[in-house]
């Protein structure tokens, strides 16, 4: 029975989601077998570090540095001392500084080792920046105004309940990915959460599992599953509407799509190239507006506190995804 059901699901997927399957195949064949030139645990020698020379070569540079200082000082204090005295005092300083710098350098290695200088492959940077700007405008001119109205209409508690409900229905995405990664404990947690919240939490509108039993939501998705089995993350992509992603996580989102129960609630509209699932798209948009309304101001603050929001977001995205795959 299980197989037949699975077969039917696959058949259904083939019929109705040709476009997505095509996307999977195209993306998969493009990127999966190729070595994107990126290694996950790269030693501190890539993009970020190209500019420096090896530590052994740092001594001549210090001399240069000191010379610069010397020449500056000479400019600033041209004729206060007789020439001989000036020279000797500068020399003395030069010595002091030289010692200080080397001493510091030895000690300094520690802070360089500590944080791994991770590398981020971003060959699509011009495109990505464009898409980042697009999403930025999308947020300020569409998403935010809509969410602000939505926030006024619905009180906090209702919006949190909507979040809980959608999250409860999409349990299969997280549960299946826990199972796929062989994480029994996490899978059990997700399963219990689903049962408890569906039955005692009024069809998932209330997260009683977390409140009373301390069962935390397990954030697993197909992108993490792919990472778990050793697929490289590939390069960074910013999708219009969907935001930051990587090659692997893009494949992951396609996978998640097939795990999402909302996809299988069928009322579809044919737009020629593919069929649009009304319920799924409706839920996706509701979820997006709902989440935005619950997190208004965060994006603004993020932008305010960063020098280059694009780079900041990219770095945060990679850091977060890498951490999630590790646990």
């Amino acid at each position: 029975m299980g197989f037949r059901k699975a077969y039917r699901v696959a058949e259904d997927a083939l019929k109705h989601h040709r476009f997505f399957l095509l996307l999977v195949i195209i993306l998969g064949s493009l990127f999966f077998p190729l070595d994107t030139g990126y290694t996950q645990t790269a030693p501190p020698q890539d993009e970020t570090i190209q500019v420096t020379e090896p530590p052994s070569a740092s001594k001549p540079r210090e001399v240069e540095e000191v010379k610069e200082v010397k020449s500056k000082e000479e400019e600033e204090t041209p004729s206060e001392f007789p020439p001989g005295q000036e020279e000797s005092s500068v020399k003395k300083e030069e010595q002091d500084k030289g010692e200080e710098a080397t001493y510091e350098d030895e000690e300094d290695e520690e802070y360089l080792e500590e944080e791994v200088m991770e590398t981020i492959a971003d060959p699509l940077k011009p495109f990505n920046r464009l898409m980042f700007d697009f999403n930025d405008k999308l947020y300020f001119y569409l998403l935010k105004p809509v969410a602000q109205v939505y926030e006024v209409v619905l009180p906090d508690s209702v919006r949190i309940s909507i979040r809980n409900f959608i999250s409860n229905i999409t349990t299969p995405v997280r549960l299946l990915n826990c199972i796929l990664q062989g994480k029994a404990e996490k899978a059990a947690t997700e399963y219990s959460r689903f049962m408890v919240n569906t039955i005692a939490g009024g069809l998932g509108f209330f997260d009683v599992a977390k409140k009373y039993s301390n069962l935390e939501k397990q954030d697993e998705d197909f992108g993490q599953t792919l990472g778990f089995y050793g697929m490289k993350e590939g390069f960074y992509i910013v999708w219009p509407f969907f935001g930051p992603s990587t090659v692997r996580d893009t494949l992951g989102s396609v996978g998640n799509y097939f795990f999402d129960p909302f996809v299988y609630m069928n009322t579809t509209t044919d737009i020629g190239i593919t069929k649009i699932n009304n319920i799924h798209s409706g839920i996706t948009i509701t979820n997006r507006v709902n989440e935005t309304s619950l997190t208004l101001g965060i994006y603004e603050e993020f932008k305010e506190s960063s020098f280059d929001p694009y780079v900041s977001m990219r770095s945060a995205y990679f850091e977060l995804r890498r951490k999630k795959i590790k646990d």
Partner: protein
Amino acid sequence: MQLLKKNNYIIAIVLALLLVLPYSVWASTPTEQVREKADKVLKILNDPALRNNKEKRRDMVMNIVEDMIDWQEVSKRVLAIHWRKRTPEERKEFVNLYRDLLKRTYSDKLDIYAGEQIIYDSEKIEGSRAVVKTRMINKKKGEEASVEYRVIKKDDRWLGYDLVIEGISAVNNYRVQFNEIITSSSYENLIKKMKNREFKIKESSKGDKSSKK
């Protein structure tokens, strides 16, 4: 935008608390030192008498915070490989600029504090460095955020050098941004940007302090 979902005020408070790391002779473990300072800040933030005097409250918190951080360590890590190439004068300049900038950026955000609580989960000491793991909890909204304080031992004090909120390290994030600016243009350009920015923040905090929520 997916990753920015967590509640902003928690992040803000926490960023403020980054500045609040330890100073004490009798409290010896990193957790105790972090807790002592965090408690002081929470006390100020919870003081109803100060609630209407945001200006004063901000200054008080920032005073506690000011020297609880090893700004030199922070700057070293933020500049990373570029730190080595700086002259002592440049280093000093950067440390001061970066400190002022961080203080300005985050002191405004103290105002969104809404009674969050801190739970201390664990601590791990490795040589002269330690990590204190905590969670900030907002009971009303039922939300929480994980916060990791990274501290380094200087004499008897554990001084903060990094803050990891929801898995994102502040130092790491700034480092990547600074590296991008330095490698695509120059260190001088970075300094220029930092100075411009400070100027802007000064202007805007003068202007619309009241209009911000």
